[in-house]
């Protein structure tokens, strides 16, 4: 379902993604684990037509994002790492515009929006403006939105960031259900080893833009002679802490917009 071959993305001299290859067969839940700045989000951006690779090839369902953008976009849903909601619209409106853009027929759209908002406990707040929501509510709304158009491939970029344990648990339950009932292929990234171990069929560990190991959770543990995925992860990526380099431009803009809105 996803094929990536010798994929490279450079920013100037810096190799954010450095010659990675992997395949994800249909129906698999595949997890990308790696420290901050490892290149997980950059890889997802290239897979989802948001970024052009510097070199290498990739296909989704046999199609190249470079040449068949719209076709590729029809096949996946994505929950981004960063916020992606319109705060000046209500929860319902955010869902609805997504449904329209993904050509979900009106009747079905209304049904699915209702059931998903109920499922993620947002139905009572459906007419509230998203800018008044808490971080966890926004996250749940983004996840609900990702499920709206039953895609063939679901990308989840650190979807549980900022969620409480209950919502986290619930999310992975839904992901597993979807994967089993609809055979949806899932590509996820997370910082939480227990989550990866619980839901992922296969895992790739990425560090400094390179895949350092891939296999089932058990294979990774055997390979590193450790007894938990966490220990395996640390064995493969070392103990040093990484900071994502701050994006100065975005910070400036954020300050400016805050000034502006006041």
């Amino acid at each position, binding site marked *: 379902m996803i094929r990536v071959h010798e994929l490279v993305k450079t920013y100037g001299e810096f190799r954010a993604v450095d010659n990675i290859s992997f395949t994800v067969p249909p129906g698999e839940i595949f997890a990308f684990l790696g420290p901050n700045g490892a290149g997980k989000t950059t890889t997802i951006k290239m897979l989802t037509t948001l970024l052009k690779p510097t070199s290498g090839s990739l296909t989704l369902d046999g199609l190249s994002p470079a040449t068949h953008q719209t076709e590729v*976009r029809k096949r996946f849903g994505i929950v981004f790492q960063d916020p992606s909601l*319109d705060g000046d*619209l209500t929860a319902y409106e955010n869902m609805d515009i997504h449904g*329209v853009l993904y050509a979900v027929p009106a009747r079905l759209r209304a049904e699915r929006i209702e059931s998903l908002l109920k499922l993620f406990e947002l139905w009572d707040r459906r007419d509230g403006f998203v800018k008044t929501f808490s971080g966890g509510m926004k996250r749940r709304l983004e996840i609900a939105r990702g499920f709206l158009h039953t895609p063939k491939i679901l990308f989840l970029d650190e979807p549980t960031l900022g969620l409480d344990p209950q919502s986290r648990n619930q999310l992975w339950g839904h992901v597993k259900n979807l994967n089993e009932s609809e055979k949806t292929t899932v590509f996820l990234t997370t910082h939480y080893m227990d989550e990866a171990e619980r839901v992922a069929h296969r895992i790739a560990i990425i560090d400094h833009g390179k895949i350092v190991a891939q296999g089932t959770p058990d294979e990774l543990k055997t390979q590193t002679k450790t007894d938990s995925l966490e220990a395996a992860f640390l064995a493969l990526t070392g103990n040093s802490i990484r900071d994502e380099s701050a994006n100065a431009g975005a910070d*400036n*803009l954020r300050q400016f917009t805050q000034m502006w809105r006041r």
Partner: protein
Amino acid sequence: MHAIHAMWLREVKRYLRSRVQIIASLAQPMMYLLILGFGLSPVFQQAGQGNYIQFVAPGVVGMSVLFSSVFSGVGLLFDRQFGFLKETLVAPVPRALIMIGRTLGSATNAVLQGTLVLTVCIIAGFRPASLAQLPLAFGFMILIAIVFAALGTAMGSVLKDMQGFQIIMNFIVMPIFFLSGALFPLTNLPPVLKILTSIDPLSYGIDGLRTELINISHFGASVDFTVLVIAAVAFISLGSYLFSKIEI
């Protein structure tokens, strides 16, 4: 088609929900109309050009359409910052349609703002020459709005932050406004100014408004119309191209 409508509706909803901003952005045109209008009236009258309030009101309407369409188009920058842009960029819809929907939404907002300014001008004493020509004046407002909303979207597609926006405001949007003849007649200008004003698309928009509102015309309504349509097609094409090239 659904995508265009959805993006259009979103822009319009956001505009209608920003009541404070709608009122606040009436301040600038009112200063031009009232202070500049009454301030320059005596000189203008002495120069034999008639009533300056009458002359400048169509310019002020055009100005507010220019600013609100550019601002609304550049709203793309805010969407980039707050993240909603990504959601529209991965949607399975040709990006050109997303861009056109946004642009038409921004243009609609600008026409609403222009209508509000025109109404306030009338309350302040401006008198359109003929009610029958009012629909034509709206036609020109719509064209100005589309041209500059598309330009705003095009600029928003290449800008990454607010510094870039300031530069564009100072070196593109303000010159477009000052060179358009919104504030002064285009007759008997020095040669350099004459050339500059005639390559400014807004000159034709203001001239069209003046033709329909006060029966004073420099280029003639059909020239105005033709130039604006060409500019609209050019900027929409440019904007669609740049929008479809956005990487995040």
